[in-house]
């Protein structure tokens, strides 16, 4: 279980560079902040070149099904860069989670449309759902009509197609619905760079695309999301460290650069060490997933809990060590703090994830005492 390559391959590094070049050109922090004032132009403008021109939407789709046939490793590197830029694009929701769901079906048409960036999809479950604690809230009636609410769904606002799990009797099935058939209410979100929406299904009908095994497909897709969100968190944390080190290297107080004050140096050193461990975690999760290593379940949970907390810690230190300027709207630090905190709540909080991990590695939480 330790055979996974924990470094970046040359291919991955080249991919990173092209994503970074595009984002540094087209995703400046001032525009990202506009998301908070209801201006989502950036999100729309960014997605096409990323999804179609760079081909990121099809990264996880095998070549024979219309994609690039890359692995979780490459997707992880993309997410590092998206985290680093705090980019408001539906890569995680559409190109990772929804795509992984469709890979568990025979939906080749929709899948290849997604892979080509023609359409965008979202799995209609609350963003806060942890992979092992999902419970459906939509019912399918006898005539195939779907009824129910799903609150706090990420990626729905950007999606053309919603993948909706619905219960009929004791069975869970998955339906693909055109987004127009569902009432989608935008939510004022803590992180507006991944804005949520509440969905209301009031007798909508779509196509049933999966019957048996829906639970398994969902939990695999959410687990993949967990494993790869860790790389977004890593990229975010790295940005926070880099920005803080750069600022403290320039900022002068008391006639000295602030970065020379030892108490701050030690905190940044600790943060660096933590981020390097987060890198190990994120790479291991991506690598074991790519290799279908049996340890990937443990790896995903480890990466999730560790990178979640590291990203929040990095964003918090970034705000604090920037002093007053870090508290302002004009400095990008706040974008990262909000994203880090929302990422931590996404797909299960660190404590919930650690509890689940305990079950996996035979260190159970005692059931009563």
């Amino acid at each position: 279980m330790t055979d996974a390559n924990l470094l970046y391959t040359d291919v991955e590094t080249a991919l990173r560079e092209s994503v970074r070049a595009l984002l540094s050109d087209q995703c400046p922090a001032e525009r990202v902040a506009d998301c908070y004032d209801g201006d989502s132009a950036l999100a729309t403008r960014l997605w096409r070149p990323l999804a179609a021109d760079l081909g990121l939407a099809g990264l996880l789709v095998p070549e024979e099904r219309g994609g690039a046939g890359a692995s979780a490793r490459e997707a992880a590197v993309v997410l590092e860069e998206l985290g680093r830029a705090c980019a408001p694009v539906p890569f995680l929701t559409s190109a990772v989670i929804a795509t992984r769901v469709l890979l568990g079906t025979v939906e080749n048409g929709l899948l290849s449309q997604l892979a080509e960036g023609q359409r965008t999809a979202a799995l209609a479950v609350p963003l806060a759902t942890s992979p092992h604690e999902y419970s459906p809230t939509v019912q399918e009636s006898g005539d195939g009509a779907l009824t129910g609410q799903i609150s706090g769904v990420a990626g729905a606002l950007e999606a053309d197609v919603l993948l909706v799990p619905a219960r009929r009797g004791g069975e869970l099935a998955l339906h693909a619905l055109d987004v127009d058939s569902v009432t989608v209410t935008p939510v004022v979100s803590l992180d507006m760079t991944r804005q949520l929406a509440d969905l209301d299904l009031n007798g909508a009908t779509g196509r049933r695309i999966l019957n048996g095994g829906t639970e398994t497909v969902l939990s695999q897709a959410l687990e993949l999301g967990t494993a790869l969100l860790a790389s977004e968190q890593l990229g975010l944390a790295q940005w926070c460290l880099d920005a803080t080190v750069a600022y403290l290297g320039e900022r002068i107080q008391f006639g000295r650069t602030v970065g020379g004050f030892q108490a701050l140096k030690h905190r940044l050193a600790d943060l660096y060490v933590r981020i390097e461990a987060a890198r190990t975690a994120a790479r291991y999760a991506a690598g074991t997933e790519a290799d279908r290593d049996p340890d990937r379940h443990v790896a995903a949970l480890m990466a999730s809990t560790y990178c979640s907390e590291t990203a929040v810690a990095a964003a918090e230190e970034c705000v604090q060590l920037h002093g007053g300027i870090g508290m302002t709207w004009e400095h990008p630090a706040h974008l990262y703090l909000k994203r880090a905190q929302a990422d931590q709540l996404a797909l299960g909080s660190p404590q919930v994830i650690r509890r689940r991990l305990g079950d996996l590695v035979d260190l159970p939480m005692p059931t009563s005492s």
Partner: protein
Amino acid sequence: MTTEESVRADLKSRVTALLDTHDPRSTDRLEFLRAQFDAGLAWVHYPEGLGGLGLARSHQSYVTELLSAAGAPDNNPRRIGIGLGMAAPTILAYGTAEQQHRFLRPLWTGEEVWCQLFSEPGAGSDLAAVATRAVRDGDTWIVNGQKVWTSQAHLARWGILLARTDPDVPKHRGMSYFICDMQDPGVEVRPLRQITGEAEFNEVFLSEARIPDTQRLGAEGEGWRVANATLMNERVAIGGNAAPRESGMIGITAQTWRDRPEVRRPEYHDQLMSLWVESELARLSGTRLRQKLAAGQPGPEGSGMKLTFARLSQQISGMQLQLLGGEGLRYSDWTMTRPDLVDMTGRDAGYRYLRAKGNSIEGGTSEILRNIIAERVLGLEPEPRFDKDQPWKDIPR
């Protein structure tokens, strides 16, 4: 009759006299406050003629009690906190008689709101690095520079201003302290939007702003000493009030735990209880501090209490988001508003989490407070200083 009793009897008769001539039910609020000031019942520890009676500070609470029982209006002390807490004691300590008579009464009644013009983009923790220049032109000072983190600047009539009047001497010696007219055409106030979406603070741009020399507080070049007196008063103000158990952030989280069994998970319990204990000890430490002050043992606990308050408000608001899970992903409103006062507990969990980040920055960063404790309380060696004896103009910045 003890002295204490006779003082109280005297105060009671003064309050009765005030109430007799100004029935709170029928007197205009401002008129009442002016009369209270003139009766020496505004702040009894101030001198006679300046709203006080020259008594011990501790007697004020008795007056306030009596007036409050009679339904008298108050001067909305939170709204004019900067005036009351910072400007007034500085004017009292360093102002001329003319300045005291001109400024203290409308300050106390709230007719004139004050703001503080100290911090600058390049002078945060290192406040003595202020670069705003004041150049003398006859009886007037011409001021240019930029101030930041100015709460209530958009409401304020006056600002207490720290500016550099002599760049050729070491930094602590070349500043002077002024009362700045916020309505001067050279003063521009712009809202400073912050992480929560709202603009609680302002930036203030000074462009050829004019200040008559009669509005200088303290001697030329003595600005640092005057400003320190101001800041000392700010620190004393913190943590002055007794609150019941589970006040503030921890109360919200505790109530969430009690009211909503679905958020309770065993993995959160130990952290919840640790924060509960720390909050309760912070509260009791405030009581201990007040007991020490009452016993005439002023201590250095204020800095430590602010450190703890900031850490706890950040940790608890973070934990609250975790408890709420998906609900924590929602935010109330990102619209830029300009609140007069911060409401730390009234809004949603996300707001509290974000706003609390400022607690370890505003009013002295936690890093500076740790320095103060290490050096002044524990007596550890001060930071090496490279800028202390250099002329200000030669210091790198």
